[in-house]
């Protein structure tokens, strides 16, 4: 096992230990004296239904506490996994590879031998062939032919402009891919910083929840402790 994976597990144990210990000790705590010595009005002490209320309240508090600690333990487990993941340098490498694959697939589509470029070349060839054939076509009147020619010449110009845009896209994607691979280590460091921020957020959230659970436990202990002890 690596040092990295040991560290969060140890942290989890150190947090979970006192929590579990507190839970184990809870049934041993004598709640009765606390309830017996809780200041009550004369009418409350004589009412049968009111005498049950503190027990129910204790039971409810205990259930809530157990639930909170169970959830907290789950949260600690998931946080450990998240931190393990976010501090793994292999994960940031994998992210760069995924990014490179995305840029690569886009570049592949617009490459000179890619599908889009082939389609553009085919459309352009077709438009040029139409212009050429219409010039030699004798089926139409002069006006009809002029109109059709104007339409196809415009289409040819527009298709040429569109394929030129494709050239720009190709150049841009090629540049991005080259930048990614020449700045491989730097990009990897940036990815790790991003993951470090994610880990920090997880730790902060967890610390806040542990603090809340600790307050809850404190209140519970206060409730079951006889006054003056």
């Amino acid at each position: 096992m690596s040092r990295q994976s040991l560290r969060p597990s140890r942290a989890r144990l150190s947090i979970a230990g006192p929590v579990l210990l507190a839970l184990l000790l809870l049934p041993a705590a004598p709640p009765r004296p606390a309830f017996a010595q809780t200041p009550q009005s004369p009418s409350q002490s004589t009412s049968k239904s009111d005498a049950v209320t503190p027990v129910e309240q204790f039971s409810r508090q205990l259930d809530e506490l157990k639930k909170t600690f169970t959830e907290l333990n789950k949260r600690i487990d998931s946080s450990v996994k998240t931190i393990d993941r976010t501090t793994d340098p292999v994960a940031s490498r994998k992210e760069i590879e995924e990014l490179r694959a995305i840029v690569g697939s886009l570049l592949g589509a617009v490459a000179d031998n890619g599908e889009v470029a082939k389609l553009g070349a085919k459309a352009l060839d077709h438009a040029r062939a139409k212009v050429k054939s219409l010039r030699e076509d004798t089926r139409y009147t002069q006006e009809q032919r002029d109109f059709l020619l104007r339409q196809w010449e415009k289409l040819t110009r527009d298709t040429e402009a569109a394929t030129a845009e494709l050239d720009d896209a190709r150049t841009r994607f090629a540049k991005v891919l080259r930048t990614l691979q020449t700045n491989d280590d730097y990009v990897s460091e940036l990815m790790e910083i991003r993951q470090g921020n994610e880990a920090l957020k997880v730790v902060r959230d967890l610390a806040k929840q542990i603090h809340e659970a600790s307050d809850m436990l404190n209140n519970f202990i206060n409730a079951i402790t006889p006054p003056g002890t």
Partner: protein
Amino acid sequence: MRVGLAAALALGLVSCNEEVGYVEIKVVPGYVVPPLVLGAARVDTTRSTSTVLREKVGTARLEYERDGRRVPFCEFDVRKNRIVTIAVSAIGREPRCKVQG
């Protein structure tokens, strides 16, 4: 046309599952080189000074065409999802290459 382009782009994205890399062929300004061929693709050096080709991963050979024959003059590695730039110049009538990246 737009639907066709979208379909072709999708096709390009789907076909990215096979292991491919990219080769950028640049003719150094001022040099005139014969027509170039990379695998099944012909490179029209008169149309543009830069061409980007999608190529299978592995060793690739750039060739030039002369008198109907293909003459290899440059060998390089194509790596997955990476781009390699080949700068082509010439000494006399013979093309020369410089591999970058």
